[in-house]
């Protein structure tokens, strides 16, 4: 009876959670009213964790009669979770080193710019809650390796489940933990605790992660998860061997060992042959190459559409310092301290640090996974230093024979002061970065004059408001996908592609329209029923994030889908440069994006000088046939063009002549100066000449 009750209450809980999720999802989707025309409906392709969390908090608060709007919950979710991240970082560092280091680590993670960027109020993003889940999972993992208790491991699995439901970065966990186990095996640090922890974690974690709809069967299918499976098998084999070792004599064991090894080799060999034969060898490949599988998952950056995102660019040294400041210098010291006094969990943090550094170097976005470990290790370093130099002298009296006599109180205080200075500067830097880089909305740009006064460039909102007020309610706006959500949210118009468009071919089609010439683009735009085209142009004020700077990505993405029509090399000069001035390639100077960006740009002073690219544009005489300028914002940042309808009649814009002969007349009898004839029509001979050189492209030859 008790079991029944329990089962029933479990059902109720699950149903409640489901209901909350549905409610929050519906509300959140209602908040953004229009989506792009292709990606309706399926929201199977999102990680539900964020919505469930926000919905759950909202539900519980309302249950307690704390009436808040779901929007407010969403806004404040990230700061609340950053608090939880600080706590879990404290716990994890305490497990690794000591309480003091834990406190320092919590302080660091609380203010470090690399994490502040995701945890400011209003950033309702997967990463916000995922970093908490990441840290907490690691804490529980370290705890379970330390204790070898199933209790902690189950906790770790649940936390991992939450992580899986929140962010695609969970593959980091499912690769780092096996890597840890593998390293422990290699280092002869195998123990029952590790066996219990990893076996439980892998099985329960696998089953739980497969419950997330978006993940589904990926954990047993894709190469990212194969490492975990491989380590699981290895661990079982290792444990089995250990067990046999205890039971068998040395001779028996060796025989059995070789038998087993050769059998395993045979099986692997046959499997490889089978998979190769059936053409599925690529699935096997990453299993064999353990470490490469990690690289493999990020090899996706070679797909242009993914690589085009600025967050996916390789990290520069500047951004390391910008986001981490002094921590980036001190964390190797912490790592060294850890390696010097190695134990099971410090192996883990060392691996964590090394892999995170690697991935942060691959793309800016993964700086986020580096930040917590940098905070932890720096805290270790600072904590050790402080312990050494600030420690109570009376405690050290006891082993007086140690060679620490040289450290006079002066040196101690100087070092301590220096360290405190560093920390102070770090705090100042964090405050400055937070206020300058992460606290202003990206839709309003601010610039500073020489005298320190501030200019607000509100062009985006101006343009979106114009769209909202002056266009038909059902008008479709074509723009690069970066602006999809903004157009949908702020201008309330339908877009072709937006930030959640998963279908590469749609984006490629828009890219093709932007990089074709006007008439080819007009065909595409007509087939897509486009009414307006919106572009971002920074040439007047020197805004570097504009569409011309992104243009090569559009070309690349379009080339990926339409290699016959668009070729990236056409947009470069013969020297391989991307130039907008006179030396630029003619394809570039006549493509739609160029024409829309620089239309009437030659009229402003200095004539046609692009401040973003520091060049005078090459094509100042731009005329449109199928488009007309509808709106240009104050600083030309946003330009909107209206796509004209087909003309009602097709009037003649040239004289029709029927010239029968197509053959080339290069006869010397034709005089250079044609004989004077009456009327409009030139002499026949001259017509022949002109057809030879095809002076008039409109002349119709029949």
């Amino acid at each position, binding site marked *: 009876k008790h079991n029944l009750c329990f089962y029933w209450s479990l059902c109720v809980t699950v149903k409640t959670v489901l209901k909350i999720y549905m409610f929050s*999802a519906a509300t959140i989707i209602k908040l953004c009213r229009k989506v792009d025309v292709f*990606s309706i409906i399926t929201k199977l392709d999102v990680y539900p964790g964020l919505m469930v969390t926000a919905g759950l908090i909202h539900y519980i608060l309302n249950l307690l009669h704390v009436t808040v709007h779901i929007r407010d919950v969403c806004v404040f979710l990230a700061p609340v979770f950053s608090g939880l991240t600080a706590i879990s970082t404290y716990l994890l560092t305490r497990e690794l080193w000591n309480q003091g280091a834990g406190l320092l680590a919590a302080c660091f993670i609380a203010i470090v710019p690399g994490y502040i960027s995701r945890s400011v109020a209003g950033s309702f993003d997967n990463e916000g809650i995922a970093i908490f889940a990441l840290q907490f999972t690691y804490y529980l993992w370290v705890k379970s390796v330390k204790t070898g208790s199933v209790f902690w491991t189950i906790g770790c699995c649940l936390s991992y489940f939450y992580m899986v439901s929140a962010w695609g970065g969970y593959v980091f966990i499912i690769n780092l933990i096996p890597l840890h186990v593998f390293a422990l095996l290699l280092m002869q640090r195998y123990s029952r605790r590790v066996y219990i922890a990893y076996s439980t974690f892998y099985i329960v974690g696998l089953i739980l992660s497969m419950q997330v709809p978006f993940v589904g069967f990926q954990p047993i299918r894709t190469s990212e998860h194969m490492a975990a499976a491989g380590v699981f098998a290895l661990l079982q084999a290792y444990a089995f061997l250990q067990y046999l070792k205890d039971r068998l004599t040395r001779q028996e064991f060796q025989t059995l060992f070789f038998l087993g090894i050769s059998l395993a080799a045979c099986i692997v060999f046959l499997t490889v042959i089978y998979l190769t034969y059936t053409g599925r060898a690529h699935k096997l490949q990453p299993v064999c190459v353990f470490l490469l599988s990690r690289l493999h998952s990020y090899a996706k950056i070679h797909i242009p559409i993914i690589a085009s995102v600025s967050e996916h660019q390789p990290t520069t040294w500047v951004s390391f310092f910008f986001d981490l400041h002094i921590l980036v210098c001190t964390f190797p010291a912490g790592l060294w301290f850890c390696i010097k006094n190695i134990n099971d969990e410090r192996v883990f943090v060392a691996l964590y640090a090394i892999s995170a550094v690697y991935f942060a170097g691959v793309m800016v976005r993964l700086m986020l996974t580096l930040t917590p470990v940098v905070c932890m290790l720096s805290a270790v370093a600072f904590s050790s230093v402080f312990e050494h130099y600030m420690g109570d002298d009376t405690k050290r009296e006891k082993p007086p024979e140690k060679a620490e006599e040289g450290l006079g109180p002066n040196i101690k205080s100087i070092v301590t002061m220096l360290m405190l200075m560093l920390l102070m500067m770090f705090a100042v830097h964090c405050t400055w970065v937070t206020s300058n880089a992460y606290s202003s909305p990206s839709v309003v740009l601010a610039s500073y004059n020489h005298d320190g006064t501030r200019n607000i460039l509100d062009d985006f909102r101006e343009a979106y408001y114009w769209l909202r007020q002056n266009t038909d309610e059902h008008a479709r706006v074509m723009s690069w996908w970066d602006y999809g959500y903004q157009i949908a949210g702020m201008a309330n118009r339908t877009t072709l592609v937006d930030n959640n468009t998963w279908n590469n071919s749609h984006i490629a089609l828009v890219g093709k329209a932007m990089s074709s010439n006007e008439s080819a683009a007009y065909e595409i735009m007509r*087939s897509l029923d486009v009414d307006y085209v919106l572009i971002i142009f920074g040439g007047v004020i020197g805004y570097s994030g504009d569409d011309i700077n992104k243009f090569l990505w559009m070309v690349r993405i379009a080339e990926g889908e339409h290699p016959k029509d668009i070729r990236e090399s056409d947009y470069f000069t013969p020297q391989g440069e991307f130039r907008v001035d006179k030396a630029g390639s003619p394809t570039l100077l006549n493509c739609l994006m160029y024409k829309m960006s620089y239309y009437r740009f030659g009229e402003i002073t200095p004539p046609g000088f692009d401040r973003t690219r520091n060049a005078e544009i090459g094509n100042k005489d731009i005329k449109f046939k199928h488009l007309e300028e509808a709106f240009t914002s104050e600083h030309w940042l946003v330009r909107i063009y209206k796509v004209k309808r087909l003309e*009602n*009649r*097709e009037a003649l814009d040239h004289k029709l002549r029927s010239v029968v002969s197509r053959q080339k007349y290069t006869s010397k009898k034709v005089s250079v100066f044609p004989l004077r004839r009456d009327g409009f029509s030139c002499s026949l001979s001259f017509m022949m000449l002109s057809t030879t050189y095809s002076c008039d492209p409109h002349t119709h030859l029949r």
Partner: protein
Amino acid sequence: MAAFTAVGQADRFGSLLSKKRTGMKTTRCWTLLDCSVLVLLSLASMLHCAKADGKTLVLLDNLNIKDTHSIFFRSLADRGFDLAFKTADDPSLSLIKYGQFLYDHLIIFAPSVEDFGGNINLETITSFIDGGGNVLVAASSDIGDPLRELGSECGIEFDEEKTAVIDHHNYDVSDPGEHTLIVADPENLLKAATIVGKPTGKPVLFKGVGMVADPDNPLVLDILTGSSTSYSYFPDRPISQYPHAVGKNTLLIAGLQARNNARVVFSGSLDFFSDAFFNSAVQKARPGSQRHEQTGNMELAMSLSRWVFKEAGVLRVGAVTHHPVGETAPPAAYTVTDLVEYSIVIEMLSEGRWVPFDGDDIQLEFVRIDPFVRTYLKKNGGKYSVQFKLPDVYGVFQFKVDYNRLGYTHLYSSTQVSVRPLQHTQYERFIPSAFPYYASAFSMMTGLFIFSVVFLHMREKEKSD
């Protein structure tokens, strides 16, 4: 979980859809705009055109033409047109007043006019066409500049003044010697019965100026071309340069159906419509050619006027319905691979009344950028309908009927629907091929249960021992 989200979205789309449905769902105007106001307007103008008793302004060089072309004008008046005869240079002429068109149709039988009177000029005539008015223009060898300019606005180029279409092989026996009274074979007529009427086999007499048109222009129709031996030049001069038009490129009668379905017919010959040409006998000057007691001019002129003034070849879309097979109302969103029935009523104007249109080549497309389904519509009672299976692709689709046939007005109807993937409750609950897995799961569960029972009891025994 996620499926609910899907429904939420689908609902939103559904409401958007139904909002549209309350307005007019389909448009037959040439624009693709969804704006229901425009649709209503265009429909209103259509209804207006549907009445045959349109007010028609007839511009003449001189009022004599009214008598020399009396058969043609009488037939128009008999068909209910309200003809207002004016000379082309009448200072009181006016086509537009206060932004309203005073006439529905315009006939210009004034080839030699150098300047229209009143406020009629090239701009008013082109805006009349763009506003949906129909124009019949007859020129002659005395063609003046306004008509030439009107022609080039419509994509047709008239030859110069004083030129004529000459054919040394196909001229009438009564030709005085310039070989400009041409006998045009009925084979050279456009193969479209709505424009040129049923084939009579009778040749057509023609005397006038030739035209050429851009072959790339999709709107211009070559209604009557010259024979391969014809050309257009000054009849009284020796040929010193390449003729303007040669062979079959020489257009004798050309038509234009603009994208707003306004129709314009240019005839190079004013005499073509005259009583004399209607009633004369015709015989080619070649020995042994057949003599016809009457020319085909009258029949052709009647058919042309019927077409150009929208008495023939006018289609419209009636009710459009679509729903899953077995239901009557459209759902908020279709599900992929639904079996859907689509039906559309298409009507044609005949004798001033709308009757069901009879065509066997009307196609329906189910489009999301590209057509995923393209199928023929079958006539089924007064409407066209088809049943088909939706593709296994979700997104926003359109049912599209885009019927563009020679001689008929452009028929266009598009209805936007959304197609969603299966909800998670719509998948099969039990799959036969998965029964081994079910068996293994359930055997595991029972096994675990038995094991735990045994395990618990075994332990107790051990303890008691």
